[in-house]
């Protein structure tokens, strides 16, 4: 995902236009339990008083991705939803769609239902030169007919999607031997996003601890400002990882989107909503 963001930051999409994501999985979301009291506690997700709804509980990761890919924070949220199928005394909607406005004319829609599984979950990002689809640990690029040639797409592996042909975005896929018979067309990154995140956390934590220790050994007590300046310089060496601020901002976006859906209101999202302190 980090490499995909770097690829997008090269401007390959042209002018970014919009993004969208969906979560489709038929499931009741209810957890059974032996006693009514325990079942109420276990099923906090089905109660609007304690739940962020499908958008927050399932979509926060997609919204975090949207903030990252679109390189900004939403300024407005609106949406619709309904309890369409699971009429079992829950009040959390089982069928929702939210729309978020981002700066520079971009917008992002998120739809989730636990009443149908078709097409699972995916994310799309659209720009004037191409669209990018992200599914699980794979991604494809769908170029516009008038988009500038990148040069390597002639050699890239392509997959057919109905009437479209998607260029598979993966390292090594452009090499000639990836085209040979016998090449495994279904190879995906064996490392999950969670593992990447944990590795980044461990590396960043280790480097921070080592950096502080080496600073203290070299410069003695120093001043807080000196250490702060040193640590700020080290940030450029940090492994890509969501910070506490990224998590906070994604959570705020998700909860506000859910509030817009539940209250059927259009909500302004000022910048200070996404800051702490």
């Amino acid at each position: 995902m980090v490499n995909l963001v770097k690829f997008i930051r090269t401007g390959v999409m042209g002018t970014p236009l919009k993004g969208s994501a969906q979560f489709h999985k038929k499931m009741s979301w209810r957890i059974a339990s032996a006693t009514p009291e325990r079942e109420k506690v276990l099923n906090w997700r089905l109660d609007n008083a304690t739940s962020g709804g499908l958008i927050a509980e399932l979509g926060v990761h997609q919204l975090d991705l949207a903030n990252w890919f679109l390189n900004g924070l939403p300024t407005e949220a609106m949406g619709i939803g309904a309890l369409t199928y699971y009429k079992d005394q829950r009040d959390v909607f089982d069928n929702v769609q939210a729309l978020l406005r981002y700066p520079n004319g971009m917008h992002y829609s998120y739809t989730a239902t636990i009443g149908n599984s078709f097409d699972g979950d995916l994310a799309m990002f659209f720009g004037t030169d191409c669209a990018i689809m992200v599914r699980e640990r794979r991604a494809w690029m769908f170029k516009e007919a008038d988009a500038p040639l990148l040069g390597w797409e002639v050699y890239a592996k392509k997959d057919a999607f109905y009437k479209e042909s998607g260029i598979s975005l993966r390292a090594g896929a452009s090499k000639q031997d990836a085209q040979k018979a016998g090449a495994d067309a279904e190879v995906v990154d064996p490392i999950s996003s969670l593992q990447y995140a944990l590795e980044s956390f461990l590396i960043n934590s280790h480097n921070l601890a080592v950096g502080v220790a080496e600073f203290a050994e070299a410069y003695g007590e120093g001043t807080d400002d000196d250490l702060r300046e040193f640590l700020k310089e080290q940030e450029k060496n940090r492994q890509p990882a969501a910070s506490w601020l990224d998590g906070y901002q994604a959570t705020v976006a998700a909860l506000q989107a859910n509030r817009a859906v539940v209250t059927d209101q259009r909500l302004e999202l000022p910048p200070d909503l996404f800051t702490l302190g």
Partner: protein
Amino acid sequence: MKLNLIHWTLGTATAFALAVNTLAADDTVRLSSKPGSKVFMDGTSSIHDWTVEGAIISGAFEVEPEFLTDLSLKSVKSLMTKEANPKCEISIPVRSLKSGKQKMDEIMLDALKSSEHKAIVFKLKEMVVKGDVAASGAAKFDVKGDLTVAGTTKPCDMEVALERVAGGRVKFIGSQKLKMTDFGIAPPSPEIPGMDRIKTGDDITIRFEWLVGK
């Protein structure tokens, strides 16, 4: 009697030699490393030039106290002649050198044998003013010392510049061209998925800005 005279003479000569080449500790001021120091290592490869940088230079510079007050350095014997020399040893932890790419850092640490040799070390042997000293105190020196990288020590001669900075601090600036193979380091040749095998160039340049003060 003759043997005693020889021993006395030899002993006196030795003591005299040691006295003129080593500054007594109570005749010096110790200027230790300060934050703001930087070190860079520039290199090349078959795909692009690269630079690693660090902000940790540990060590101290011990010199006559006149170094801080006499901007002309004329009264600082250890810098004007070879009869005496300042004492200086610096250490750069190899883990503090960063390229901004984790994989490249791992390759570099492996090449520098960081598990056994945790730092690049320079020990000063001689430091003499070169040319005129500016009114601001800016000066240049011919420096000789021993440089240890990945456990291998080689003589290192370079020109080092001095700048006086605020707060009574001093900045030493220098650079040195080296070859990895001179220190027993085989230029790394990693293979990255999706790319041809990368070949790293043998020639590198170490640049530093070392800030010291009381």
